[in-house]
């Protein structure tokens, strides 16, 4: 229950309602009627695109409120702080899931040997891909700070490509192979934990791809310069986080 936005400066977006409705229909449809689920998905996607478009046209970027007391974080923009807070919650959700995995694994009398179940080589390749993609994003930021928009575009595009490659390898090669061998999501706790955890990670990675894609579109549209590029830094933070989670998942599932 919240009050009205009586304080805002008169610009109202309808997207919050639409997104909420879309997501709710999506969830409802998941339970009772799959076409409803698809409808919800479409509504949410369209709303998200509208949000992107608004971002493009900078319809909702407000001027900074001055003066401010913001010790000790005066230098950081509010979006950055928001991203850090968000990442904290993400650390906790992955932490809980990983803890659940550890708990059931320690409580199980037997667990399949990692190297025999999973393709460690592919896992290794994926790990390197993610690390490189993080590097690309860092470089992209470095370049745009120096005003080099070409470097920015190259960096973002590489990150996007590498991230996509990760998903292709995982979803296109690893998972089908595992399923073929009978290692499915409900073939027992080893399967369940693997698919749920790597699946949640993959969803986060996909969301990251969407964000990087948005950045790419803006970059190619000339929306960034040496003084205006906070989006790159913030998405970069999120991207590094997704990478770090994988650094935990990889050994937990592939190596031990």
């Amino acid at each position, binding site marked *: *229950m*919240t*009050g009205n*936005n009586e*304080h*805002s*400066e008169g610009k109202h*977006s309808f*997207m*919050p*309602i639409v*997104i*909420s*409705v879309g*997501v*709710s229909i999506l*969830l*409802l449809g*998941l*339970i*009772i009627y799959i076409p409803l689920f698809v409808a919800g998905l479409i509504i949410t996607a369209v709303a998200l695109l509208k*949000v992107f478009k608004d971002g493009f046209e900078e319809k*909702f970027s407000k001027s900074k*409120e001055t*003066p*401010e*007391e*913001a*010790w000790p*974080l005066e230098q*950081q923009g*509010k979006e950055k*702080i*928001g991203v850090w*807070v*968000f990442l*904290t*919650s*993400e650390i*906790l*959700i992955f*932490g*809980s*899931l990983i803890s*659940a995995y550890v*708990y*059931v694994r320690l*409580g*199980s009398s037997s667990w399949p040997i990692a190297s025999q179940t999973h393709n460690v080589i592919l896992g290794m390749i994926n790990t390197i891909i993610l690390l490189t993609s993080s590097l690309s994003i860092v470089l992209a930021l470095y370049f745009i700070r120096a005003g080099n928009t070409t470097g920015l575009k190259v960096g973002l595009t590489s990150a996007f490509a590498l991230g996509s490659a990760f998903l292709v390898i995982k979803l296109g090669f690893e998972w089908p192979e595992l399923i073929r061998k009978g290692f499915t*999501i*409900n073939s*027992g*706790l080893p*399967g*369940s934990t693997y698919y*749920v955890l790597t699946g*949640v990670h993959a969803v986060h990675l996909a969301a990251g791809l969407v964000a990087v894609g948005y950045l790419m579109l803006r970059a190619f549209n000339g929306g960034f310069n040496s003084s205006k590029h906070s989006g790159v830094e913030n998405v970069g933070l999120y991207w590094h986080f997704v990478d770090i989670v994988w650094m935990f998942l990889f050994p937990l599932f592939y190596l031990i």
Partner: protein
Amino acid sequence: MGFLIVAGSFGELMRTQLAVPNNTLLDPFQYSETVTLHGLLMILWVLSPLGVGIANYIVPLQIGAKDLAFPRLNATSYFTYLFSGVLLVGSIFLPGGGAATGWTLYAPLNTIQFSPQSGATLAILALALLSVSVTMSSINFITTIVKNRTKGVTWKRLPIFTWSILMTMALMLFAFPTLAAGALLLTSDRIFGTIFFSSTVGGSILWDLLFWFFGHPEVYIVVLPAIGIIAEVFMTSAKRGLFARTVFLFELGAVTFLSVDVWMHHMFTTGVNYTLLQTFSITTLAISIPFEGVVIGLVLTLYKSRIKITTPFLFCLAAIFTVTLGGVTGVLQAFPVLDYAFRGTYWVVGHFHYVMAGTTLFALIGGLYYWWPKITKRMYNETIGIITFIISFIGFNILYFPYFFMIDMPRRVATFTYTSGLASLNLTATVGAYIFGPAFLLAVLNLAFSLRKASSETNANPWEAKEMEWTGDYSGTGQATSTENGGTSSITGDYTKKSKEIEK
């Protein structure tokens, strides 16, 4: 508010069912559904959101910001909350009914094997959606409080209510992801056929661990804004600053930190290692110390003061009463040996209704009354306010105090026998429910009635409050002799240091 009415009616329904032995008003499944929905709605969709809703308006005022840091995120958070609640209530209309597991959704009762109805899955998804909404809120509020304070609002001068909201939001950030994780795993069990909660390796204990790691901080999330409100109302009603403000904040912070380390006291009877139980018993007792310090600090704020007795003040007085009573009954449960008997009985129900329904609800309504003139520029009817307060307070106690004598009555039972000797206690409680419910509703409606009057600037600060959200003076411009736009002392930000301001 709508959710309050729905959940409140569920509560009344439950009490009606329990009014007489062997009642057949609700069949056992329906009763369990009612219990589940009453619990979920009240805790997650009413109490916390009311607090956050008040905060949404007041926190920006208190720190001098124009709005929250991310307004569209704010709106999204609100609407996802709204629709998640709609989904939850709607779940009982699906074929097979909704979840009937109690708000704690214990495993393996919550698995598809024992709760095959799709309504239960929808309820879990609604929970997950709420977690998303809450996370968005906490991102928003934390960023706002950190970044959007206007000049003069240093950390030292941050108002108590904003502090309490900040701590609440930090706890939310910490607790809700675990709920989301649990909901995710449970959904995966129910839809994809995984066995996290049906296998005996994970099973009941895994759910217990995940749920209560969320569940205990959750109840502090519910109660912390209430404490903030009580502090604000006391300060203004008593016309003095908070007693030992620094210590108070320190204790509040201690409660916040410790609350994540006490959760296993909900698992005392699960048969886990006794050393674990001892540890958590100690941490639970430990958290009661700063909390009691907080309550004492609030009471001592009234010492040597000048109290103006108003409806908000009365509600907050009641809240202190209920938090003390509820708190000590909670401390008693911290001893495993006592908890073996308490667990799953009406003693526990009494305890948490006192702290949640009593403290939080009373404090929140007190807060609404307190800030109403500021928000709406209208004044409510004080007499009706006081009368409805008295009736609802009496009704509240008639309703919940008997619970402490019903130690032998298990929770979530749809009826009881004549021979159990529980009939008179249950009937008393039901009578109390019929008094408390309507009286409380009237107290709320009293506020709504005031909207029919014209708004007027003279109502803008009827309490002669000195806090920043009332005066608009954020930077603390020294001493002042006028009462309305008084200056703020540089230490508390609240009241002038003038003891020279005179006795007549």
